[in-house]
């Protein structure tokens, strides 16, 4: 009996390692592949000879990207967008989620408001109405068109709302007895005890703002306002060979430089990769643990 259990658990461990290892590799290999191409000779890359190790190692593509002002400029736009966008997201998220997390006896129209927010997740105006709103509010062509339309992320609000509700009510009652108002309770009790949830929400909106590209193309006035992903989009997209103009091949010949493409993709994914470990430490749970004895 002991033997078979031993055997089964060993199989479980082996399978576990195998499946998780496979998953990890399938995430890692594309990245390594792109990194290898970016360090290879252009002709070898175009010939599809590079797999996981650079062929004819060269740093030429990185030297080229370093000189490419457009790349760094859009990188800057993206960084500012993430800082401002995530900042706005967090503030709106917290101030919306906190009252909505209250019970009916504390906040009478809670359900009405919750539905009000929730409805926007189910139905949206669509592309054209949104474009009209952006245009008529004068956001068109400004940086704010990238951060204001998505400033209130309802999905994140619901996440945070549910987390707030798990915070013991006794904490709030204790604070009220000590004479704290709702603002103080929100900022000094709820926010510090919810770092895990806040980190999740921050990560979600960072990823959103870093990866979103369509708004950049749609709402910006000129390409030098593009955030990084809109910029990347214009260099990595496959050109359709069927409806090309007589002179489009020039762009094709230029864009086809795979090594430069890959260098830019790799550099673009670096910041978001680096963001994970820093947010990781907030995922430590148990902040609430020990705050209520009973």
């Amino acid at each position: 009996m002991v033997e078979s259990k031993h055997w089964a658990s060993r199989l479980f461990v082996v399978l576990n390692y195998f499946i998780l290892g496979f998953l990890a590799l399938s995430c890692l290999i594309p990245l390594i592949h792109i990194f290898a191409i970016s360090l290879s000779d252009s002709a070898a890359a175009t010939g599809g000879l590079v797999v996981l190790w650079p062929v004819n190692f060269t740093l030429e593509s990185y030297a080229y990207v370093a000189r490419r002002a457009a790349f760094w400029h859009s990188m800057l736009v993206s960084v500012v967008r993430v800082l401002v966008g995530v900042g706005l997201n967090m503030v709106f998220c917290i101030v919306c989620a906190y009252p909505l997390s209250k019970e009916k006896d504390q906040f009478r129209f809670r359900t009405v408001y919750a539905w009000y927010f929730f409805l926007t997740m189910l139905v949206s105006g669509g592309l054209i109405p949104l474009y009209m709103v952006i245009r008529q509010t004068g956001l068109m062509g400004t940086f704010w068109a990238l951060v204001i339309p998505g400033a209130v992320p309802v999905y994140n609000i619901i996440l945070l709302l549910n987390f707030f509700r798990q915070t013991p009510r006794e904490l709030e009652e204790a604070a009220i007895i000590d004479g704290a108002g709702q603002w103080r309770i929100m900022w000094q009790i709820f926010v510090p005890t919810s770092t895990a949830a806040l980190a999740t929400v921050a990560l979600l909106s960072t990823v959103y703002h870093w990866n979103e590209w369509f708004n950049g193309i749609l709402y910006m006035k000129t390409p030098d306002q593009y955030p990084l992903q809109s910029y990347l989009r214009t260099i990595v997209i496959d050109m359709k060979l069927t409806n090309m103009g007589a002179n489009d091949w020039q762009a094709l010949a230029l864009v086809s430089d795979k090594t430069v493409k890959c260098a830019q993709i790799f550099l673009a994914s670096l910041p978001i990769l680096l963001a994970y470990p820093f947010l990781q430490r907030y995922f430590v749970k148990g902040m609430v643990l020990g705050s209520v004895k009973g």
Partner: protein
Amino acid sequence: MKKLSVFLALALALTMLASCCLAEEKPDPFGKYDEPVTVHFVRSTDDTLDANFFSQHPDKTMTDNLWCDLYRDTLNVIVDYDWIVKGGDEYDQKLNIALGVGDIPEFVNVNTLQLKQLAEADLIMPLEDIYDAYASDFTKKIMLDTGTSPFDAATINGHLYGLPNVDSTLMIADLLWVRTDWLEKLGLPIPTTMEEVLATAEAFAKADFDGNGVDDTVGMAIAKDLWGQLFSLRGFFNGFQSYPGIWVEDENGKLVYGSTLPGTKDALKTLHEMYEKGLIDPEFGVKDGGKVAEATTAGKCGLFYGAQWNSIYPLQSCVNLDKDAQWRAVSIVPATDQPLKAQTDVGTLHWTVVRKDVEHPEAVVKMFNVFIDKNWGPNNENGIYYAPLDSESIWKLSPVVPTNPNKNNDAFMVLEQYRKDGDESKVTGEAYSILQKLKAFESGSEDGFALWGWERIYGADGAYGVLIDYQNKGMLQDNLFVGAPTETMTSRMSTLEDLQDEVFTKIILGESDIDAFDKFVDDFNALGGKDITEEVNEWYASVK
């Protein structure tokens, strides 16, 4: 009665006054405005401009450069952009949304479908009178160099709604690209018939040139989008008197869809036989041009149909990787004893339209005049404004880009003459830029080797020679339907094209019997093709 006659007299006097004033203001194609006129365009940009111009001139912008200076100095026209977007698809996407919300730019370059919608919504103005009055004689000549088709496509109910940014039709005809170093190794001639093409493909597929012992060479490369300008099937089908995707005359002088012609069946049958013999990559249905280009670069393929520029991309990478590789573009080959024709299509992709309330619509016609005159007129400064050696894409800085459709042919002819008599003084303009490239290549330097692709196009046995041969021998099959898309075409054509590609791919791969082609023709007609054919013929009768 008296009142009426006074009124009539007054009206007459006014008319005379008006006509005398009009007579005084005879339209001047290059007339400079007294007050600055600002024209608002929207536009797309691309990497070639960034790489070839803006990177060398960081102080220049889209609205501050030599083309904008030229329009300001010669016409007193100030060019401004409401928005600029990067990429052609992105431009179409954004423009469609902007037009959808009624955000119509003053001047805008649109495709035929957008033009038709704008004209039908009565948002843009007819331009035929303005064009007649203000276009210079030279502009009118250049604009008609590919026939009236660019104008027909923009004419709705007898009114011209857009000025064609004309471009070459010849440049997109298919050629057969062959790896001549492989031919030499195997002692094969350059293929001139379909049988020889099949034999060459078979020999290439069987040979193991890289000596890796793996059977990994394909006979003839094709990509999943079948009719592109690279790894195409058009040239192959043309050998069977089949003209996929364009409209041609049948024996009764009626237009028919080229994909439904009987020759198509023979072409598909031959392709399936090639597939059976292992001459075609069984995975072609999922490989896009870029993927096939990788294989070609890596020396896995030595034969394919494509356009004249293919030597620059992707074949340049192939020779960079393998210095012994050599390619050459030759004429497509006949499979029957019928006359051989290579298909072309309207090269003009964009028409400049003018919003209804614009005060100076003629400004754009004057810009067309200036653009054409500066680049190809008798006193042109092509070497500065079109394609100077250090910044080849400079012409794209102009918001309107009507191209002299014959410019590349002319350049090739000039170079041919130079090769005969060695007189460099006659080599000017774009031909001069190209000659410098050819010389750099011939110098044997490493930088020069990067221009191998240019030599393959404009050199002595270059691709352009074959295209000019097509033209001189009357070997071109134009698309005979060049009007704005008809009603059923707008709603059905893309579905029908998808159906066609799916059926053709299945037949080649043997998933469907060859008789599936007959079913396709029936389906095509039943699903809207019949209506489209009727509409197309109605149009054809109206322009004949």
